[in-house]
């Protein structure tokens, strides 16, 4: 920079704080990155709709909620919200009119997000083009349509309060904890729910079923969780959608596409360190079924015919293309829902800039009956060092019903 312009830059720096409210480019840019970390776009965009304009039907066990419009449209968006209104929604789950939000909006997590970060996200959302998108916000059936009832829920399950770093742990660990427990709201999917739809505080990140996908155990358990992956492998998975073991598809594929693949590697690393250092929990491994078991014999025959061309006869898979099945935690979750769903309906891996090839698992539901699917999955869950409960044909029948009926 020439000296001629140097004085001007200095002047602008001095003036910067005064201009921030008018032209807060830095805050908005930071807010955009934070909105990506929070994956706001995933829920607040209707299929094929304008980003952040809301209208996605979110299915919960209690009814369907339509997500609101986050663009600054005054009539249908959050154009009239002040930054304090926004912070209150994020931190307390309360709208400007004082009515409760449902915890499908993950304010139990966002309460941990620092006020400065909330303000940055707000600043970013203000930069979006206002979109007129009226969303019916009252689609929940009785009695869940009574929003005031949420204050009871909150008193039972919601602990407001900012994130508190653990001074005994590294800065990276605490950064990771802040992201995982806050904006990342990983537990919303990966922590089991109680009967009232609250994440069980006693079993954090210990796997959960959501829309017939298994959100796997994210503790450091070697069989079920991240214990067999290095920090780098976790980072690679979040950044690219795949690693030496497997590939993301389904809801996690969407999280990777919209969120983690666009996050800074340092943040992904912090999250990986936190997840791997926060401990181990999960069921004990059952003894694997013997190869002589009738289900194993049937399963092996189906596997050789139908699966081995891609996943290979030793379950090793092919790097970057076909997931490894041997010692793959996803394969050994207590709940086989993902496996059943993927065999019946197929799945497609997420494509990312770093790993653009998005291979597909074909749907096999048309030619394998419930017992055959159960047998082949039982075989996969109990071979090559894997150990997990057998899959029953009732498990398969249940998921097939859901897939066929669409609900």
């Amino acid at each position: 920079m020439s000296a001629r312009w140097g004085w001007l830059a200095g002047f602008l720096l001095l003036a910067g704080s005064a201009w921030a409210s008018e032209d807060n480019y830095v805050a908005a840019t930071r807010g955009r990155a934070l909105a990506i970390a929070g994956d706001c776009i995933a829920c607040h965009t209707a299929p094929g709709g304008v980003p952040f304009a809301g209208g996605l039907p979110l299915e919960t066990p209690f009814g369907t909620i339509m997500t609101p419009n986050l663009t600054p449209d005054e009539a249908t968006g959050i154009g009239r919200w002040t930054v304090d209104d926004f912070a209150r929604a994020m931190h307390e789950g309360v709208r400007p009119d004082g009515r409760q939000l449902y915890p499908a909006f993950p304010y139990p997590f966002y309460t941990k997000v620092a006020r400065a970060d909330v303000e940055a996200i707000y600043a970013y959302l203000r930069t979006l083009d206002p979109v007129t998108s009226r969303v019916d916000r009252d689609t929940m059936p009785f009695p869940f349509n009574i929003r005031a009832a949420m204050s009871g829920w909150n008193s039972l399950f919601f602990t407001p309060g900012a994130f508190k770093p653990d001074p005994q742990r590294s800065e990276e660990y605490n950064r990771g904890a802040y992201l995982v427990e806050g904006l990342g709201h990983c537990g919303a999917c990966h922590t089991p729910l109680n009967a009232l739809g609250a994440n069980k505080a006693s079993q954090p990140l210990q796997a959960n079923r959501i829309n017939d996908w298994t959100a796997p155990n994210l503790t450091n358990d070697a069989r079920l969780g991240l214990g067999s992956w290095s920090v780098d492998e976790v980072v690679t998975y979040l950044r690219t959608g795949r690693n030496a073991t497997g590939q993301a598809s389904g809801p996690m594929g969407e999280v990777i596409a919209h969120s983690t693949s666009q996050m800074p590697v340092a943040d992904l690393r912090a999250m990986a360190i936190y997840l791997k250092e926060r401990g181990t929990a999960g069921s004990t491994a059952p003894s694997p079924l013997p190869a002589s078991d009738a289900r194993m014999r049937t399963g092996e025959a189906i596997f050789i015919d139908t699966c081995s061309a891609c996943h290979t006869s030793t379950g090793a898979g092919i790097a970057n293309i076909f997931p490894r099945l041997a010692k793959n935690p996803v394969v050994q979750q207590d709940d086989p829902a993902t496996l059943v769903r993927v065999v019946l309906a197929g799945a497609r891996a997420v494509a990312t800039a770093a790993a653009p090839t998005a291979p597909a698992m074909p749907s096999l539901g048309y030619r394998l009956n419930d017992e055959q699917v159960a047998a082949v999955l039982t075989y996969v869950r109990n071979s090559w060092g894997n150990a997990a409960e057998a899959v029953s044909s009732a498990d398969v029948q249940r998921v097939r019903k859901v897939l066929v009926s669409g609900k």
Partner: protein
Amino acid sequence: MSRRLPRKAVVIVGLGWTGSIMAYELAKTGLDVVAIERGPWRDTASDFNIGTAADELRYGIRLDLFLRTKQETITARNNMSQTALPIRRWGAFLPGNGVGGAGVHWNGQTWRFLPDDFRIRSHMIERYGEKIMPADNTIQDWPVSYDELESSYDRFEYLAGISGKAGNLRGQIQPGGNPFEGARMREFPTPPLKQGYAQDLFTKAAAEKGLHPFPRPSANISTAYTNPYGCSMAPCTYCGFCERFGCANYSKSTPQTCVLPVLMREPTFEARTECEVTKVNLSADGKRATGVTYVDRNGEEWEQPADLVLLCAYGLFNVRMMLLSGIGKPYDPNRNEGVVGRNYAYQCGGGATGYFEDAKFNPFAAAGSLGAAADDYNSDNFDHGGLGFVGGGSMTCAYTNGRPIAYHPVPPGTPNWGSKWKRAVRDTYQRVANVGVQGSVMSYRGCYLDLDPTYKDPLGRPLMRMTFDYQDNERKMSAWMSERSNEVVKAMGAKQTQMSRLNGPWSVVPYQTTHNTGGAVMGSNPKTSAVNRYLQSWDVPNVFVMGASAFPQNAGYNPTGTVGALTYWALDAIVGQYLKNPGALVQA
């Protein structure tokens, strides 16, 4: 009346190998690129499901992936004295249809032409004198040398992850590779496929006869591979469903596996499928393309203006597009003038089939380009003195498939049906090995493409007419090659052998090979070539024409490796020279 769309920087006609590479590389520079493809979208995950991809009846027999004659066909005749008739069912060759083009359903044999092939006219005359050149030939040197193309060959091979063994690394002959090949700067990206028992027999027999066998370069790849674009592939499973099929295993190099995953992420790229370009529009003086006109799937006509037009359709259809649009002077064989349609060539077969007594070849464990080859009788790798022909071919012992409907070889003399035929099929299936020849075809004054005077397509445009037959040069070459093949098959231990012959006039009916070349050939002289050394039209410099239509004559190899190399070669000229200063890159 067509409606005019907003201008694009680049319009690409056809989204196969050449179109997808061009589209990606140009979109990456930030240019707005649209590819217009008359066939459907095709994608491995949605179209080539492992459970249904290996359906021989649907794909191998009913030809699901191929162009329908209703979409486009040609008329054909053997010589100028005949009246050409339309091909009503594709036979001798099968043009592709849809995104990926022929790059979807090819076998995957990926060769580099030999250094001599690029200056075959000069070379043959220097070595043997004018007298060796066949009657009425229009053989001409390429305007580009092997050395100039080497890095472009390399880029295509690394894009596609080709499996093979180098025979000449920077001038050093490598054991196990093809010692006749031009020097390559580095090894193949992936090692050769595993060879079968028949290939082992061939390799041993050929070596004993003093030949130089090696594993054939293959786009059915041997190991997992991620290409420089970041696209990933899986190893071939030797299922033997390659040619005519989409690969469900991500093992065959195709635009789908190697380019589309990154191309479709480019924000400035758009693909319009099921849209047929009807002509390239020219300015009033005919010296500049203004864009293209196309008809969409609803029959509505659109004009797509563009600064640069790339013809990336199948070679034959590039030639027709030029003829229909008035780009370059049509070839007139009577006056031997004009360039568009000139030097159409093909590929000629040959070889010998061996029937063995105790062998068990397992032909079903196959891949489209699995095979052991020898190049001793290709190009001018052998002394042509006294043989009476120019050219040669690669010789290969291969199994591309052992599929149940079409693969049932029987010994000569077997009835065509009934219980004796069935018994022969059962007894012979495991005991047949073939040594086949991929032979060169030279170019001749009377072998060419032009617009048919009678027949038109549903849009009222004249069909293209193909005038072609094998000439004496090719017939002699093929017969001689079949004898050489027969010697090798016998040395492999066959108890009975049968040589293939080019009998009678060339026929459009039985399948032979989809290696149609020429018609818009590249050259240094605008009087004998339609495009310059950068595949740029001499007459309309903002039109470039990709594909095998640029080959001045065909060599003794499959064409795709050279098509890929020419694409990168032209791309470098477009990005490095043309875009900076649009205009003719070579002064006529």
